[in-house]
């Protein structure tokens, strides 16, 4: 029981209960504006009947069509603690996948901290699998390398043979991912 709608700039003033979570990054304004300007349909917020923001997803479409790498990407997905365990994250992911389907993407991918077991398991339940490990993808606020990421993927209907999700056995470095 949720209102799902496009995220707008005004929501930035109301998202503290979501973003004060330690694993949710608050980005600089340019980052949000870039997504709103380029992929507004991929930035969706869920609102509770009382007006509280429950969670949001932020994504984009990128990659080369010719190389069959055109895909939807999940940049951020976060749900406020008091609105967890309602299946909201799954709902938002489903919407992002649907948008990516319409755009003719081959797959949807996302990066997640290796340590964030809760999220990794959730994505697995939603049909995502680890495609590769990216070494030291996350860095701490001092710029020091902090943690590895899993690059997780789920094939969309256009990738009939599910080629895009065949795992790469060796870990890669952040500079090697395109």
């Amino acid at each position, binding site marked *: 029981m949720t*209102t799902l709608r496009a995220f707008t700039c005004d929501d*930035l003033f109301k998202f503290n209960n979501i973003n004060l979570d330690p694993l949710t990054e*608050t980005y600089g304004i340019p980052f949000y504006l870039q997504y709103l300007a380029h992929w507004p349909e991929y930035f969706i917020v869920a609102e509770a009947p009382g007006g509280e923001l429950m969670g949001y997803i932020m994504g984009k479409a990128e990659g080369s069509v010719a190389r069959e790498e055109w895909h939807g990407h999940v940049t951020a997905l976060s749900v406020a603690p008091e609105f967890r365990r309602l299946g909201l994250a799954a709902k938002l992911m489903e919407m992002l996948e649907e948008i990516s389907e*319409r755009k003719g993407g081959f797959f949807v991918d996302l990066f997640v901290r290796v340590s964030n077991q809760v999220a990794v398991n959730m994505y697995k339940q939603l049909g995502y699998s680890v495609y590769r490990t990216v070494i030291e993808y996350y860095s701490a606020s001092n710029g020091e390398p902090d943690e590895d990421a899993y690059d997780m993927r789920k094939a969309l209907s256009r990738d009939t043979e599910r080629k895009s999700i065949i795992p790469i056995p060796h870990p890669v470095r952040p500079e090697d991912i395109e």
Partner: protein
Amino acid sequence: MLRHILVTSNMAARGHVQDPNDRRLRPIYDYLDNGNNKMAIQQADKLLKKHKDLHCAKVLKAIGLQRTGKQDEAFSLAQEVATLEPTDDNSLQALTILYREMHRPELVTKLYEAAVKKVPLSEEYHSHLFMAYARVGEYKKMQQAGMALYKTVPKNPYYFWSVMSLVMQAISAQDDKLAQTMFLPLAERMVEKMVKEGKIEAEAEVQLYFMILERLGKYVEALDMVRGPLGEKLTSELQSRENKCMMMYQRLQLWPECNALSYKLLLKNPDEWQFYLSYFDSLFHLMDKSWSPPNEEEHCVEGPVQTTVAEAVKFVVDRMEEEDKKDSRPLRGPYMACLELIHRLRQRGCPDEEELGDPLELMLQFFGKFGDKPSCITDLKIYLHLLPPEQHTQFKNRLGDLVPLGEVGEDGFGFPGDTKVLQRHLCVCQLSRVLGLQHTLDTEGKLCLITELKAHYHYGLQFGKSCLKTELQFSDTYCLMVAHVYIDLWTETGDENMLWQCLGVLEEGLSYSPSNAQFKLLLLLLFCRLGAFQPVVDLYSSLDAKHVQHDTIGYLLTRYAGSLGQFAAASQSYNFSLRFFHSNQKDTSEYIIQAYKYGAFEKIPEFIAFRTRLNQSLHFAQVRTERMLLDLYTEADITSSLEESVKAMGLCPEEDDIPWDNMRDNRDLTVLFSWDPKDRELTEEHRRLSLEEESVWLKVRSLTLRLLASLALLGHAPSPRNSDKTNENGVSAKSSTLQTLLSQLDLTLQTAAQITEKQTQYPFLGPPSSRLASALSSGSCHCQASALQLSLTLQELETTGLDDSSELQTQICNSFKSLIVQLQELLSRCKGEVLEMKDSRLMTQPSLLETLVFFVEPVVLSGFQEWTGSLQGIVTQALDHVKGQEASLTALKLAALTLGVGHAQTQEECGFTRAAMDKVQTSYLGSLQELGDLLRKRADSLKSLKF
């Protein structure tokens, strides 16, 4: 990266053939990119010796100069090149970057205007010109540039850039008539032309068409368009067409269509709350109009329409039954919709609500289904008013029956066996708080409640043993509620022990759940209320609040840091916020341009409104004012003269840059969780009063700042008798500014007095009170005003000359004496112990610290006027007082305090309370030291003046 420009412009203009000039310029680009500006300048000079006409080298040199702080030199060098009206990509793009860094985006437009004239067929230059106009918001010129571009290269996006520029002219027009009769109709015709010619290509173009029709109020046309073939292009956003149709139905009050579409969408997704609302809205509108469907054909284009309460009841009941039947997780929507429908029927005095059932039973049913979700409280809270007060206790008890706790142990409590039961139990506690049942308990009752909640908290910790540091503990909410009950007790009884124990329990909570933002926020608030700012710094930084959060929750820091004498921390917190606001202007312009490029037209007005909202932020105005005041109070006449400081800040007393009439309160005032009953919640009225109070306080501060600036520029002007006529005029103009500002301050203080008379009390977890009340009651404001008034009189004396001014001299003498008396009084209000132990209780008087800060400000201000004698006496007294306070604080051995006497606290809990007490003591000492340092510096500068 500058290097990038070189590469891309190469490829664009000349393919991959290497231009010898590019080879020559490359090292300069590299130096600049690596931050090696000096080498870049040298390299450019070297190159310019050999190739005088290599303009780009000059511009790159100018970039180097700009970045090393030589703005004037950089500017004149840049203008040398600009007047030549360059047409090479390298120079143009380098100049663009330079002008942007100089914050002179309007010069970029001149640059490309010239380039376009010289190379009229260049798509690239035309498009740069359009973007340059976009950056400065020259909508009319954008419209023309877009059209010129389209005529050069007939690509659709260019045409629609021009159309959008018309829409922007409409939005920004002062006169709405102009928008409605000229700009928007013109935009509409431009789009219609493309439609007729069958040239509409992209979704963005359809979106823009819709936007224009909507703004014109042509909802019928908009609806036809969305339903027609053009609407088929609306595919990116999910349900884009349905959402747009719904919006138009509502605008057009086409309730049958609205109803039928809502119904359809709800059948597809019975959890979409907004469509329940539109379904009910439309239903009741139809009932009010006694609308009946046409007999034979379809009800309306969207399908069957529902027009009776019976149908709505059946619809909702059916949705609930569907959920009941499901194997998977049930959705909350239908059950909430049922409560919403009862609420609406009751509002209309409609008796049919009974058909849906008793709200109490329905809420119990809801709790049965969703009680183990943390959101249950947020959901039910909305409909608690459906229960009559006499049912509250019954409701709570029956909820309790649905929570199977284990056997009651020695302490008299039974505990949940798993986290689901725990969450249910928590929800009952939350509901009973929201119903006010906790608030009606007496002190003993509340203490028992605390014991019970604490027991549950500690018991529940076992379920979260394997939780990561980044996760919350399942039982955290108990801990937070304990803190809330302690706060109730503290505010009701004034018993400070409750506060200390509250701090203890929150510190304990944080030790088990180090990422809990709510613990941190509440601790932060409590330490601030206690006048202890030092622990707040770490707490806030561990929240990792960044960027826009400085605007929304930065007030938690900036409200208290300076007022508690933590000047270094205050300065730092102002800077965090200011850095964010200053980058806003540049950042948003860039993305307005991106929105044009990607055709996200609806985002353009949104970005502009966002930029305005930040620029008009109350917090922004506060931090920039407080930042300058702080610098003047702490630094002026110590490191540099007041006049120099004022000049360095670019302060102009005549200028008022605060948008008083359009101030935006961007503070997030509900960031702290609260389960208080409705009558204790933050209301819109509270918000309004808080903004009003903060604005008046800001006005006092901003006038004080401008008065200080005015004084600085006046006081150090040459004496009028030795100067020529113009100078004399200058001085009198300035003193009239001073006079004007003083009377404004006087008026503002009168308004302030009226506001503080209201003695507005905000909810504890809502906005902090402004400093206004204590500034007035301490006498600080009037002291400052007197000191400033005195300066004005002194100025008059200087103009009049000593000979004809015996009256004036007497007046000054009296004012001065009275000022000293006022300062003495203010100082006497600082007397007392900020922290003391009495009968094994720790007592605080944080207001003494605040008053001391309020004492320091007028002292410093008077010090600027070089009145030494008596002032020095007061400063010495104040210093003695501070020293005395420091000594007694240091002597206070908190370890000697026996804790847990009043109400039982475990050994461990006492440890946390003690830690909190130590933090408060240390923080007080820190504040006193900073205040002492400042006073000492002032005393020294007064002494040096005396000689």
